[in-house]
């Protein structure tokens, strides 16, 4: 038998366990293994190696699992609390955006009317309108700052990160 034949057998032995073989390839390999002791031993060793790999057992320290559960629970509670604190803010943001969108054309006209009635330069009443327009965003930013200062909104995951930090 040529060297190529054994090399092909070697490739098919591995492929059988990784991608699988076509029926024709399987048939060819089985026939080769019947007649070639070296490749048969190689096939046997490969199968054995995979079988032992599948049989490997890793002992688990229950304390590690309990600790992971406790830390995850604590963090989940923290994150939920953060979500709860943020929720009213999100609702307020959505609500104010909606109001803004709906009322902008009317307020623009109102500012224009007041500007003309008071004989103000266009730039002044337009600046006034912009100022009014930015009020909700400013309020949201103040609320975020206040939440961060009072409860640590973004104090994040570093609390109790423990063993990995050392």
């Amino acid at each position, binding site marked *: 038998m040529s060297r190529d034949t054994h090399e092909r057998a070697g490739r098919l032995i591995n492929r059988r366990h990784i991608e699988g073989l076509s029926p024709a390839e399987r048939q060819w390999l089985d026939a080769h293994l019947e007649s070639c002791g070296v490749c048969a031993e190689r096939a046997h*060793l*490969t199968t054995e190696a995979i079988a032992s790999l599948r049989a*490997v057992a890793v002992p688990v*320290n229950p304390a590690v699992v309990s600790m992971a559960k406790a830390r995850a*629970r604590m*963090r989940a509670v923290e994150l939920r609390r953060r979500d709860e604190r943020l929720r009213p803010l999100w609702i307020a943001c959505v609500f104010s955006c909606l109001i803004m969108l709906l009322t902008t054309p009317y307020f623009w006209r109102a500012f224009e009317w007041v500007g003309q009635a008071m004989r103000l330069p266009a730039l002044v009443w337009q600046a006034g309108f912009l100022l009014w327009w930015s009020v909700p965003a400013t309020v949201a930013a103040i609320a975020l700052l206040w939440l961060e200062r009072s409860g640590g909104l973004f104090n994040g995951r570093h609390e109790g990160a423990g*063993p*990995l930090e050392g």
Partner: protein
Amino acid sequence: MRQECAEIARGLRKHDPDLLDRLIERYHYRLLRYLISLTGDRALAEDAFQETWLHVLERGSQYNGRASFESWLFSIARHLVIDWFRKKKGVSLEALTEPDDDRASLQVPAGQPSPLELVAEQEEAERLARALPSLPAVYREVLVLRFQEEMKLEEIAAVAGVTLSTAKSRLYRGLEALRRAIEGGRA
């Protein structure tokens, strides 16, 4: 399966602590086994195990429920270990990306029994326990994902963050290296 993944995704978005409890209970063994094979160090693997679950919580909203949860979980664990090795241990990223030769970059220190060795009882298992840590980490990883986790090739590629052809090539080379190492152990 799909529905279960979607439920997990929903629970993670809500930071549901009970869901986390169930996930840890269900996946702790497989995650730990994977981390041990990846790091070759039990203490390190246990620390990474703890941290992985915190990352799962924090990045829960990134899990869309379309891919399998274990692939996502393992890829989070993998990123964490790579990051960690890079930052704390001074081991380059290449150690977990592609070995230049057949020497392991993240080997178990000499003379120290690996966790796998500790539990090896039968002769064959002992041979494997000696052979496995001598393989480069990237080979150990794909072998574990394929033959212990029974993952599909596509899932292995997703976890390892490589193309399908790279995942396959690592598997072929890993299997070859494992067989040779076991053969060497017999001689």
